[in-house]
């Protein structure tokens, strides 16, 4: 039995007091402990941003890469060793801005990855510019007269791109978030966990209070996550073009079970994980390959 301490890092988080990311960290640690994942068989991959410092704050293997590229790094690692539990983590700027292309393509591939986005609707580490999920009219350093483009809806984008597990959590609901994390990690295939994770320093609009007034749990309203059309209906509730009725669903919007993962279909993995077989080629095969050029 692995104790929760096994997952703790000596490095203390550098987030601002009250940051939503603390709840994400504790939820993930609780989820991995519940699932009894061995820290040495876990790899946490991140990009750049406040939330991308994440891998340092728990004990597992980690790769803290460059801005926006956590998903390709995570994909490569998973393909090299499908036996690892690979979790990508980062912010909304990292994932839906500079990394948006990778986000879409990684979802359609259905690699068995969990992707946690700490979505605070602002660029925090660069001191407060508009992000891809900042809402219309939001005033930031880069939009002093307010944002004049619609925010990305990550849930709808994920459904559209063919993600097989699509969910939203809220840092103000650690219990609910932990349940989502457990289901996401257990899901065989790509799992998105978009977490409403308030930035207490730069986002004075989308605060804990603001969310508490609006969030509700899908499971408490009898939502069936296996129903794609119902998932779409819930997905477009927020952010909505006409946001008069602001209710923000949390929980699992959609889960498609049993779809083969990319790594299960990959011919190059038939002989097992790549990390366990770096070697030259056998003489008979070498002969075969050369014969093609004769």
């Amino acid at each position, binding site marked *: 039995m692995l104790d929760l301490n096994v997952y703790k890092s000596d490095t203390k988080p550098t987030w601002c007091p009250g940051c939503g990311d603390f709840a994400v960290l504790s939820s993930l640690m609780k989820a991995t402990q519940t699932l009894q994942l061995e820290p*040495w068989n876990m790899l946490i991959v991140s990009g750049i941003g406040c939330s991308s410092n994440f891998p340092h704050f728990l004990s597992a293997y*980690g790769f803290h890469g460059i801005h926006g590229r956590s998903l390709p790094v995570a994909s490569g690692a998973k393909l*090299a*060793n499908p036996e690892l539990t690979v979790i990508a983590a980062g912010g909304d700027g990292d994932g839906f801005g500079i990394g948006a*292309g990778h986000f879409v393509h990684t979802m359609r591939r259905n690699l068995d990855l969990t992707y946690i986005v700490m979505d605070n609707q602002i660029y925090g580490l660069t001191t407060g510019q508009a992000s891809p999920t900042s809402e219309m009219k939001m005033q930031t350093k880069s939009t002093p007269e307010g944002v004049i483009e619609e925010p990305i809806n990550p849930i709808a984008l994920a459904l559209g791109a063919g993600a097989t597990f699509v969910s939203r959590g809220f840092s103000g609901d650690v219990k609910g978030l932990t349940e989502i994390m457990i289901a996401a990690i257990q899901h065989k295939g790509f799992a998105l966990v978009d977490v409403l994770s308030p930035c207490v320093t730069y986002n004075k609009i989308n605060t804990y209070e603001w969310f508490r007034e609006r969030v509700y749990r899908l499971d408490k309203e009898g939502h069936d996550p296996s129903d794609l059309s119902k998932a779409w209906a819930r997905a477009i509730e927020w952010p909505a073009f006409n946001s008069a009725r602001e209710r923000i669903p949390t929980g699992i919007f959609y889960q498609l079970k049993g779809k083969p993962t990319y790594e299960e279909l990959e011919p*190059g993995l038939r002989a097992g994980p790549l990390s366990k077989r770096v070697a*030259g*080629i056998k003489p008979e095969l070498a002969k075969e390959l050369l014969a093609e050029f*004769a």
Partner: protein
Amino acid sequence: MAKGFIFRIGAAAGDGASSTAENFARICVRSGLYTFTYTSYQSVIRGGHVWVQVRAEEDPVLSQGERPTLLIALNQQTVDIHASQLSEGGAIILDEGLQLDAAKLAREVRVLRMPLVKTATELGVQQLRNVVALAAAMALLDMGPGLLEEAIRETWGTRKPKALEGNLEAMRRGTDWVAANGGSLRLGIRFSGKRRLLMTGNNAIALGAVAAGCNFFSQYPMTPASSIMHWVAAHAGQVGVVMKQAEDELAAINMCIGASHAGARSMTATSGGGFSLMVEALGEAGMTETPVVVALVARCGPSTGLPTKTEQGDLNLVLGAGQGDWPRIILAPRNTVECFTQSARSFNLADVYQTPVILLSDLYLSEGYRTVDPDALDMNVPILRGFLAHGEPPVGGYKRFLLTESGVSPRATPGTKGFQFIAGTDEHTEDGELISDVRAGVPEFIEVRRKMHDKRMRKLRTAVKEMQGPEVWPEADAEYTILSWGSSQGPVREAVLRLRAEGASVNSMEFRDLFPMPVPLVEKALAKVRTSLLVEGNHTGQFGRLLRAETGFRPDFTYFKSDGEPFYPDEIAAKVKEVLVRA
């Protein structure tokens, strides 16, 4: 003197000139000749003008050569552009419906106006005109139809008996037509029948990679690097390689870095444009000390440039790629065999020094089909994985970025119990904790930064010991020296041979391991140079600048070419003669 010929075929894109020429090159190799091909094509799928040159000789061939001995002109444009280039005593095969101004031909060029279209129409398949013409060309060269028949049977076999019969009939018509219309050119070539291999530089790069245990490959399509991906994809299941076509080059290299971090041996390939997108990730690999091999197959720039033309214009790009300093190794294969050996070696260097290795080729080298002696490709490549962490984690904890004299630290891969660490792109401590957030600038951590940066860069000092100096050929001492790097080797050597045959004292100094430059070896070689000419396929002499930065050496003369065309031996020889007069 070794005998041979230069075969050229020209047509509109989509008319099968390339595949006919490739077929012919393979036939030449099977006949025992050495071959060297160059394809001139354009960035279109149909239309435009494609021509391919196949040079074949009894002895190893150094370049595509110049004027053709034999031309197959499948359209009017080919006749108009190429007929006047035919060498004396050569021949042109063209359809009876095309126009030819005989006055523009060299002396004693035989004109074979053949019923190519008519025969193909009779046989019911337009593409068979290529087979008729090819059979005729082989008859002119005394090659006999046996090898063509073998190739036709390989392609059509028993799968398509009707197509097989049509092809064989086209072959017989072509052969018979020449027999009835003047017979062969009587070049007196000896066909040894010793079979060697025919491959492109890109084939050799891919082959070297899998022989070296590369098992993760990710790429985004880009001319002229795509055929590396095609070969790997075609053999992925057979060899056990994961080949992932990525959504862009950013993803391609980051997937490779992720795979390497998790323990695979990974490679990506691209051309200059895609490499430009990979630049930030190369620094990421340098900083996280993750091995990765990147093949850059250069084409004619800048920007989209001439995508189907060649240039050695990306050396500055690879030398300067990425913000800040990070250790990189740059190798430039000179020929097809070195595409194989340097590709294989790249993986060991990347693992041993835990840093990116860039293999710098170009369109000319990577796309040309050339004969390779099978003995030159040792598929039994030793696998060096470098300094790995294993056993029990050390007391006091595992330090992934341990400060060492060599600069190389023990590497652990995810899945190994007790060695958990974070590979960070922020500056970090020996155990991987980042120092960028709350520690940067604090005196103790200024020291950490200095030591960590020194440690990474120290790898260059260690690696330089196994970098090769230039090869000087055919002898160390000469009055005049041509300096070159990478793919120019063949045309330069051929120019040297021609000049020496005329009595000039000329040699060739060829650079292959470009960075880190083994300065003592280079200086030793340069000390013997009397008068020098630097030959480079770019506008500014990018290698010349590197050489001057590293050694202070300035060539006496330069010949820079960046029009998209490869070097030809005659132009290099002419340049040497021109500067010799001035020297």
